C-alpha cells in the first residue's frame, strides 16, 4: 500500500532538489529536467502542477487516508518548536524598538539541519537574530548557531569592556554575561565542545584587544563581517589542528566538512543590520498608508540566481575555470549556496583535505562524502563565509522583519509572506470579505476556503506568527488559504518522503514597535 502511494509521490516531486550536495550523476539528471525553480516566476505554476498531482494521487490511493491527521495533531506538530519572546517595552534603561519575536521551525530532514538563534547583547545595546541552514549534516549549523553571536558581541564590545572581560577570565573571576539567549528547549548547545569554543573565542578577543585602540570602535557592519570571517576561520583551524579527544576531533571535522548558511540581523534602536551568507533571506514587512503590506528584501541570496555572485566567483578564479566554477546553477556543479560557513571541501587545497582526513579518526573514512573531491577543483578557495551586510534605518512603517531559511522562500513568495504575517499581526484578515471577483471558482474550492477562514477565526488561531506562516507555507491552497487536508497530508508524510516535498523551514519574525521607532 505504501509503495503505491510512494510511486505517486515520486511523480510529484521531480523538479525539486533532493539536497544540497548530490552525487554528480544524480544531480545532473534531476537538474537537467528542471532547474531550481526561480521562486518569483515559476512558483504558481509548479505549485498548481503539484497540487493537481497530489489531488489525483490521493484520490486513487485509499491507503493515503490512513496518514491523515486531525487538526489537533497538525497543531501539535506545527507548534512543537514554536517560541515567542516579548521584550519589555521599557526595561528601566531604554526603550526597545523590538516588541518581541516569534520563531519556529518545521523539520523535513531527520534530524533537522536548520538552526536558529536569538539573543540580547547585554554589554552593548541591540538584539541578534539568526537563521542557519545546514547542509551535509547539521554539525556546522549547530556550531555556528552557538558561536557566531558571541563572535559578533565580542567584536562590538568597546575596548574597555574587552579589557575587563580578559582580566576577569585571566584572574578566574566570574565574567559578566555577554549574551542573554532566547532559546527554545530544543535549541541545544553542545557541552563537550564548549571549552574548545571558548578558547577560540578568547583567542579572538585577545587579538581584538591587541588590534583595537581605546575609544575607537568598529562599525556594526565591520564587526559583523569580521565576526563571520573569524568564526569560519576558527572552524577551519580547529579541524586542521584536531583535538586529543577523539570525539571532539571527530566533531570539529564534522563541523568543518559540513556547511551552513547564515542570515543574521542585529537591531539596535533604529539601526538594523542584516549580515547574510548564503541563501537564507531577511525581508522587512512595510505597512503602506492604505494598510496593506509590502516586502522590502534586506539581503541578497548568494546563489546562481544572483548575477553579481556569479560574476564575483568567476572573477576570483582563472578564465579557464569560468565554465566550471558555476555549473548547473551550483558551485562547481555541486553546492547551491555560493557562500557558507564550513564546507572546507570547497575551501582547502586538495592536499590539506587529504592530510586532515588521513590523520583524522577512523569514523571519517567511512564518510564517502568527506573523501569526495569536487571536480574541476583547481584554485581553492571557492567558498567564503564573508557576509554581505545591509544597513537599514527603521521607519515607523517598518512593522516586522522575517528571517527565513530557503525552505520558506521556495514555498511562499516574499510578498505573500509579508501579507500573511502582516494580516496575522494586525488581524485584518478577519475583516476582509471574500469575493469571487472575475475568477473561476468552483463551489468545492470556495467551501475549502471558507472552512479554512472559519477555522482560523476559531480558537485554533495561531498565537505565534511563525507557526502561522509555516501553516501557510505547508498548507496553502490556490487561494492563499490554508487547506487543512493538504496540511495534514503534507505533515503526515513519512520521514523519507518529507524531504522530497519540502526543505526544513526555519522562521524568525521580529516585530517592531512603531511608536518607539517613530519617537527616536
Amino acid at each position, binding site marked *: 500500500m505504501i509503495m503505491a502511494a510512494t510511486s505517486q509521490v515520486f511523480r510529484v516531486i521531480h523538479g525539486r532538489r533532493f539536497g544540497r550536495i548530490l552525487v554528480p550523476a544524480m544531480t545532473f539528471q534531476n537538474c537537467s529536467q528542471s532547474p531550481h525553480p526561480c521562486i*518569483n*516566476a*515559476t*512558483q*504558481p*505554476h509548479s*505549485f*498548481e502542477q503539484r497540487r493537481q498531482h497530489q489531488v489525483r494521487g490521493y484520490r486513487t490511493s485509499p491507503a493515503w487516508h490512513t496518514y491523515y491527521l486531525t487538526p489537533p495533531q497538525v497543531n501539535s506538530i506545527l507548534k512543537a518548536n514554536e517560541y515567542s519572546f516579548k521584550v519589555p517595552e521599557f526595561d528601566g534603561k531604554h526603550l526597545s524598538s523590538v516588541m518581541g519575536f516569534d520563531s519556529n521551525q518545521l523539520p523535513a530532514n531527520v534530524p533537522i539541519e536548520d538552526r536558529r538563534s536569538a539573543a540580547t547583547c547585554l554589554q552593548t545595546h541591540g538584539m541578534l537574530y539568526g537563521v542557519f541552514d545546514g547542509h551535509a549534516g547539521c554539525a556546522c549549523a549547530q556550531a555556528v548557531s552557538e558561536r557566531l553571536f558571541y563572535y559578533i558581541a565580542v567584536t562590538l564590545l568597546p575596548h574597555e569592556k574587552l579589557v575587563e572581560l580578559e582580566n576577569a577570565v585571566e584572574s578566574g573571576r566570574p565574567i559578566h554575561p555577554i549574551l542573554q539567549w532566547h532559546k527554545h528547549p530544543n535549541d541545544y548547545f553542545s557541552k563537550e565542545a564548549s571549552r574548545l569554543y571558548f578558547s577560540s573565542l578568547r583567542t579572538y578577543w585577545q587579538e581584538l584587544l591587541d588590534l583595537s585602540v581605546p575609544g575607537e570602535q568598529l562599525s556594526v557592519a565591520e564587526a559583523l563581517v569580521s565576526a563571520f570571517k573569524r568564526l569560519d576561520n576558527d572552524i577551519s583551524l580547529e579541524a586542521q589542528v584536531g583535538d586529543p579527544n577523539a570525539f571532539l576531533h571527530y566533531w570539529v571535522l564534522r563541523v568543518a566538512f559540513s556547511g551552513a548558511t547564515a542570515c543574521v540581523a542585529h537591531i539596535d534602536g533604529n539601526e538594523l543590520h542584516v549580515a547574510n551568507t548564503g541563501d537564507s533571506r531577511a525581508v522587512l514587512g512595510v505597512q503602506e498608508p492604505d494598510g*496593506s503590506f509590502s516586502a522590502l528584501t534586506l539581503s541578497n541570496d548568494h546563489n546562481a540566481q544572483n548575477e553579481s555572485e556569479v560574476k564575483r566567483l568567476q572573477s576570483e578564479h582563472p578564465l579557464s575555470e569560468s565554465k566550471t566554477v558555476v555549473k548547473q546553477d551550483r558551485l562547481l556543479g555541486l553546492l547551491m549556496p555560493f557562500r557558507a560557513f564550513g564546507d572546507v571541501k570547497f575551501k582547502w587545497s586538495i592536499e590539506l583535505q587529504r592530510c586532515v582526513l588521513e590523520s583524522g579518526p577512523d569514523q571519517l573514512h567511512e564518510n564517502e562524502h568527506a573523501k569526495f573531491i569536487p571536480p574541476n577543483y583547481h584554485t581553492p578557495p571557492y567558498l567564503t563565509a564573508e557576509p554581505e551586510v545591509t544597513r537599514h534605518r527603521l521607519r515607523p512603517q517598518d512593522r516586522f522583519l522575517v528571517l527565513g531559511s530557503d525552505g520558506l522562500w521556495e514555498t511562499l*513568495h516574499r*510578498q*505573500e509572506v509579508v*501579507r500573511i504575517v502582516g494580516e496575522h499581526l494586525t488581524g485584518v484578515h478577519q475583516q*476582509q*470579505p*471574500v*469575493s*469571487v*471577483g*472575475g*475568477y*473561476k*471558482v*468552483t*463551489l*468545492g474550492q*470556495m*467551501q475549502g*476556503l*471558507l*472552512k479554512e*477562514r*472559519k477555522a482560523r477565526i476559531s480558537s485554533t488561531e495561531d498565537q505565534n506568527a511563525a507557526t502561522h506562516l509555516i501553516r501557510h507555507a505547508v498548507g496553502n*491552497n*490556490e*487561494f*492563499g488559504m490554508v487547506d487543512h487536508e493538504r496540511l495534514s497530508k503534507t505533515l503526515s508524510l513519512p520521514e523519507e518522503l518529507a524531504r522530497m516535498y519540502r526543505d526544513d523551514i526555519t522562521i524568525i519574525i521580529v516585530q517592531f514597535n512603531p511608536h518607539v521607532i517613530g519617537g527616536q
Partner: protein
Amino acid sequence: MHSGGCSVRALAPVLLPRWLCVPGARPARLRGSMRFLSTDSASVALPARARVVICGGGIVGTSVAYHLVKLGWTEVVLLEQGRLGAGTTRFCAGIVSVAKPLSVESKMADYSNALYERLEEETGVKTGFVRTGSLCLAQNQDRFLSLKRLASRLKVLGVSCNIIKPKDVARLHPLVNIHDLVGALHLPGDSVVSAPDVNHALAVASAAHGVQIYEHTSVNHVVVKKGHVKAVETDRGSIECEYFVNCAGQWAYELGQSSEVKVSVPLHGCEHFYLLTKPLSEPLQNDSPVLIDMDGRIYARAWHGGILSGGFEKNPKPIFTEGRNQLEIQNMQEDWDHFEPMLSALLRRMPGLESCEIQQLVNCPESFTPDMRCLMGETPGIYGYFVLAGMNSSGLSFAGGAGKYLAEWITYGYPSTSVWHLDIKRFGNLQSSRTFLRHRVMEVMPLLYELKVPRWDFQTGRQLRTSPLYDRLDTQGARWMEKHGFERAKYFVPAGKDLLALDQSKTFYKPDWFDIVGAEVKCCKEAVCVIDMSSFTKFELTSAGDQALDLLQRLCANDLDVPVGHIVHTGMLNQRGGYENDCSVVRISKNSFFIISPTDQQVHCWSWIKKHMPSDPQLHLEDVSWKYTALNLIGPRAMDVLSELSYVSMTPEHFPSLFCKEMSVGYANGIRVMSMTHTGEPGFMLYIPIEYALHVYNEVMSVGQKYGIRNAGYYALRSLRIEKFFAFWGQDLDSFTTPLECGREFRVKFDKDTDFLGRDALLRQRVEGVTRRFVMLILEDHDTELDVWPWWGEPIYRNGELVGVTTSSAYSYTLQRHVCLGFLSSTNTDGSPAAVTADFINRGDYEVDIAGQKFPAKAKLYPFSSLFTQQKRRKDDMELSNFQSK
C-alpha cells in the same frame, strides 16, 4: 498584491457587479414594456383621486391590484418608489411551493401556483413557469414524521403529494446524495417561475384592466380623518382615496410609522443569501425538481443549467433596524463566510456540484414577522388602511393567494376563508418595538426550516408582559410559554426533577412533562389548583344610560339583559354568523359590563367593538387587561379555600355557577370572584387589582395548603377543557364557524326578538341545517407511550372518506385516552355540502390520520359525563364555559 502568475490563486477583494445580466436581459425588457403601463417621467401628473391606492410595485402589490380589478374595481392606483419589482421581488429565488406550515398558507400557495401557470396565456408575458415539482427531504425520522404530517394535511386540501423513499428521490433528482436520507415528500405540483416576470405579467394584466401604475413615486404619508383613510401624500402630490394598501415589503414598517395615525406593521428585514452557479458541465434540466433540505437548512432549484441554492441559516443577519437609509436594497453585500454552512450543506446534498463554478452570491433581504406568518388585512386603528406584507421569504408563493384574499377583504369586508392566523390584528403596538422585532426575527428566520414539534415556543422577545406573580411562580418551577407577549406557565416542574432535560425535550411522541401535567390535572380534579390566567383580555364597557347594553345586545349572540352579577358566555358574531370573538361578559352593574376575551383578542376584539360602537360620549370602552391579575382556583376544594379567606360560604347554594361577586379575600377588598373556571371543573376565577395580587396569592397558597393546593399551568387547563369538549376561539372557532356548528345553540337568543349581528344567517342555518359539526373524537387503539401524538390539523376519515380536520387535541388523564376536537362535514353525491345530522355523526366508523397512520376513533357530540368522577353534581350545575387558553 500578487505578482502576475499568482493572481489565479487569489480571490481579489473586488466586488462583482450586483446583478449579472441574466440570460434574457430582463431589465431591458422590463423597462421597454413598462413604458406603456406607466410613465416613469414626472411629466404626467398623478390623478387627484382614486378609490384604492396601493403602495408597492412588487409581486404583492401588483397581485392585489390584479385581483381588485378582477373583482370589478376601478380607479385603482399603484405607486412604486423605484421601478416595478425592483425590491425583494427582483431577487426572489422563484420557487412556488405549497409546503407551508399552515393550511391557509398552503391554500394561498396552491392558488398562486395555478394563477402563475395561466398568467402567461392570459397576458402574453412569459413568466418562466415550469412545473418542476419539489422534494422535501428528511434526514431523520422526526423530520420525516413532520413531512408525513404535512402530507396528510395537504391531502385534505386536495394537493397531490407522495411520501417517497430515498431511492425514489435519486430517480427524480440524480444529483442528490441520498445516503443520509430516510425519506422525502414529493410535491409534483410545485413550480418555479421568474418572479420579476410574474410581477410584470400581473402589472400588465392590471394595467389592461385600468390600474394606473406610477413608478418613481414615493408615499410620504397617509392622511387620516376621523379614523378613515382620506388621501395619500406622495412626493409628486396627493391622491384622495377611500382605501390604502400598504404593500411596501421591507419598508412597510416605516411606511406605517410615517402615517398620521401610526400603523403598527411588525416586520423586520433579514439578509438572505442564495447562490447562483454557472451551468453544470452537463447542464441541469430546468424541470429538475426543487429540493428543500430543511435539515441542511437549504433549498435548491435548477437555474439556467446550473443551480440556485439558498437557505435559512441559524445566525441570520437582521438589517434595516434603523430604517431604510442605511443601505440601498440594490447594494447589499455578499457574505461568503456567512454562507459557508449552507454551501457545505449543499455540497453534502449534491457532492457533484463541487466542481461547479460560482456565478454569484445574491444577498436578497427578506422581511420576517414575529410569528413566521404574513401580515394581512385592515389595520385596527384606521378604516380603509390595509396591509399585506411580511411574507417571511415566501412572497412569491403567497402573493397570488394573499392578493386574492386581500382584494376580497376590501371588497366584501372579509376574505372567503378564515385568515385569522395571518390577520394583522393578531398583533398590536406591543409587537412594534424595533428591538423586539430585531431579536425575534433572528429566531424566526432559522425557525422556517427548523423542526417544529408540538407546543414549541419562541425563545426571543420574552418576558415582555408578566403577571405580578411571575417571579413567585418562576421560583416554584414554572415553565413558561408566551401568548401575545404575555408569559404564561405551562406547568410546574417539581423540585428534584431534571430541569434541563425537560426544557430540551422535543418530540412528536409522549412528552417528558406527561406525568407532571398528569399530577396537576389530578389535583384539579381532587383538591384545588391555582392557575395564573392574567393574560386574558379584559375590557370594561360603561355608559350613562342603556347604550352599553344596547351595544352588547347587538354584538353578542347571547342575551346580555341579565341581572347584575350574572356571567354570560357569548359569541360576538359577524354577519355570516361566524365567531369574531368568544367571550364571557359580566354585568357588573346596570350599565357596566366586564368583558373577558382570549389573550390574543386584545387588538381584534377592541377593533370589532369600536367598529360597531356609536360615537356617543356617554358610552365608554376601556381596556383594563393590565389592571387585574386573574387567578383561577380549580377543584372541589376551591370553595373551602375561598370561604376560609372571606368568611363567606362559597357552596353552590350560596354562590351558584356563573355568578360574580365583589368581595374580600384575605385583607384585600374589591376582588371580583366569579364562579367559573373555563374548564368545566368547579372553582372560581379571581380578578384581583394588581396591587393585591401577591397578597391574595400568598393567602390562597397558605390557606390552601391543608386542602392540598398546588400551582398548575396551561397544559393542565388544556387537558381539562378538551376532555370537557370546550372549544376555544382562534384554535377551534373562527369567523366562519357559527354557534350552531359547535353545539352552542343554547347560547343564542333566538327566543328573544332582539336583533344581533349574524342573527339572519343563524336563522337561515337553523332551517337549512349545518353542513359541518364540531365533534369530539376519542382515539382508540392509540398507544400513548409508543404512538405519535395528535396535535391539530389531522385529517378525519369516516368510513374511509375524508370528512374533516382536527383543530385541537389533548390527552385526557381521566379517560386515559387522547381526545381530538374537530369539524366534520358531509357532501352529497354531487359534491355539494350536505347537512350534518346527529345520525350522520353517530353512524360512522372514524379514523384520525396522524402522520399517515390511521387510528380508529369514536365521535361524540357531547362529553362523556358519566365517566367523570366528579359528575355527581347536577348537569345544569356544570358550567359550559369555554374559550380561553390559546
